[in-house]
């Protein structure tokens, strides 16, 4: 098991280097002058030269790349050209929004997608099957941004005044400034450094913070704001997971060992859940791994629709403003995030199917 994980880990290193190189080049290839994008069209040449020199942008490209890799290796993502804030700080501020959103969307798609898939496989060709699969086909074809807008229309406008009303934007109700867990626990946190960043990061994960501090009204408020975005973002993966669960369950349910299990008198539920589902998990893990990329991409659209200032939204703004630092750091973080998640999926294969390690 250990050698498998190690081998799999080592094989992702060239990909990571490729990602660093690709994002670096991509950011340098963005059209337009970063100086004038930040300081305005009227910046004089002298001011611009000084600006480029200060940010090291006047050095040869290979030198810039070497400096960049060295900085990343030290956890330093540079300074945002536009906000005059470190990119690390911006990451700490905005990453939690995206993590919370994608995590909730994934959970939502799993807790609905898997049971729906199992039920329609067990009731193969019944009206339940036809109904759920038609729904799944529609779900896969739905544009995320459209679904988000329609959900906002229904839940925030049509259902206004009813208990089902849900907020159409933001992460918390305006003015809800709940104390972070560090404040509640009276932790003495240094003003700067990795520890401070970590504490702030966790404090900004509203749901986790609410649970840590036992602040249930904060939890309710955060969840209420998350329902619509997660529904919008989670629908496509939910439909895909339902379809995949169904098809791999159908494959497994057809096999001899299932018939044997039934023939020796095991209850149907037990056979379906313990014998069949365990074996149907493998193809499912692949789909979940692939869907994570879709979720991160969809997060840009969802964040735009629901006015959430997360990674996706920030990245999109940074690209239009030619803010190299943010573009590089965010694409690197997203890509690394994606590579690591796929690594976890691959390792989970080895756990789910011991035969995988032998290959």
């Amino acid at each position, binding site marked *: 098991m250990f050698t498998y994980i190690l081998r799999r880990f080592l094989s992702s290193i060239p990909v990571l280097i490729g990602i660093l190189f690709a994002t670096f080049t991509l950011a340098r290839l963005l059209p337009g002058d970063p100086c004038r994008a930040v300081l305005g069209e009227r910046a004089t040449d002298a001011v611009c030269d000084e600006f480029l020199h200060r940010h090291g942008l006047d050095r040869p490209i290979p030198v810039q790349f070497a400096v960049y890799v060295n900085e990343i290796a030290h956890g330093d993502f540079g300074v945002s050209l536009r906000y005059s804030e470190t990119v690390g700080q911006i990451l700490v501020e905005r990453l939690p929004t995206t993590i919370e959103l994608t995590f909730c969307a994934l959970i939502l798609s799993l807790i609905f997608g898997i049971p729906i898939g199992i039920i329609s496989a067990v009731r193969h060709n019944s009206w339940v099957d036809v109904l759920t699969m038609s729904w799944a*086909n529609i779900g896969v074809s739905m544009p995320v*941004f459209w679904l988000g807008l329609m959900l906002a*229309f229904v839940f925030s406008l049509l259902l206004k005044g009813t208990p089902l009303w849900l907020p159409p934007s933001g992460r918390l109700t305006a003015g809800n400034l709940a104390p972070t867990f560090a404040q509640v626990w009276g932790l003495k946190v240094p003003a700067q450094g990795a520890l401070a960043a970590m504490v702030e990061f966790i404090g900004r994960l509203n749901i986790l913070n609410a649970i840590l501090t036992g602040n249930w009204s904060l939890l309710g408020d955060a969840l209420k704001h998350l329902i619509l975005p997660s529904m919008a973002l989670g629908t496509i993966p939910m439909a895909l997971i339902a379809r995949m669960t169904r098809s791999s369950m159908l494959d497994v349910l057809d096999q001899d060992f299932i018939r044997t299990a039934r023939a020796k008198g095991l209850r149907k539920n037990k056979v379906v859940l313990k014998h069949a589902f365990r074996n149907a998990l493998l193809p499912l893990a692949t789909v979940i791994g692939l869907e994570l990329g879709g979720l991160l991409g969809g997060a840009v659209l969802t964040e735009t629709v629901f006015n959430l200032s997360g990674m996706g939204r920030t990245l999109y703004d940074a690209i239009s403003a030619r803010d190299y630092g943010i573009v590089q750091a965010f694409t690197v973080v997203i890509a690394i995030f994606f590579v690591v998640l796929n690594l976890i999926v691959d390792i989970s294969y080895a756990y789910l199917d011991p035969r995988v390690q032998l290959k």
Partner: protein
Amino acid sequence: MSQTEETIAKLDSENISLMSVSLWQVTWRRLFRRKSALVGMMILGFLIFIAITAQWLAPYDPYIPLIGLEPVTMRAKPCIHLLGCPADKYQHLMGIDGNGRDEFSRLLYGARLSLVIGLSTVTFAILIGTFLGAVAGYVGGWLDNVIMRVLDVLLAFPSLLLAIAIVTMLGPGLINALLAIGIVSIPSYARVVRSSVLTVRETDYVSASKAIGSNTLTILFRHILPNVLTPLIVQGTLGIASAILDAAALSFLGLGAQPPTPEWGSMLGAERNQVFTAPYLVFYPGLAIMLTVLSFNLLGDGLRDALDPRLSHVNG
């Protein structure tokens, strides 16, 4: 007359065809038997009809605001005479958009663009992907390694984010958006082709062809690539669906088709802040995108099942 000739003559007289049935005929028949594929083909047929006849079906020009031609209110609600809209008012089936144009006409013209977007990006990606995959799979060695590692890096980015990055690099616009989506989808086709090539390369008929002295190109084009066609067709059909979805997303963000082009994603993006006051301007373009994507998804699933009988029971 020999016995064989007698049998043939007998069969001929009984009017029994000796022609074999090709794979495509079988596929076609199977496809027609599947209800979901049939629904997909019907929706697609309808869309193609609209795309071709848009200029005759559309009651107004999709580009020119109606200001001066009739009394218009921006973002006016739909007015349908059959549903009780007074006969002295002008009929607008889906209302008027924020620039005073007839939403219905724009929607009809949008069908053209969506189909072109889907087909052109996928064709582009298939051509390049097939080339890269075939070379990687057939030549093997370090070339295979280099090509596949580069494609791995492309796959390491979530596709929409990568497309956004490429479009910003090239500059916003429909053509650049299509190029970006095309580039982003190359790896999936290259992978499909490569894995098929790897399997087919080892077969006896390829060895036989090598033994009689065929050159590499002949082997690749006459013997190997036709065998890769089946998975490519399935992947391509499903790829059109996701290309349309991604293109709409880019246009929604303002990176794809630019106004006043009647593109569904950009129509939706332009009116997205009006969803509470003029929901119909958001609802219909989105519905159109969904139906188009749905039709290709259904058709792609149907094709996969029809081309691979082993799977016939699996996907509904």
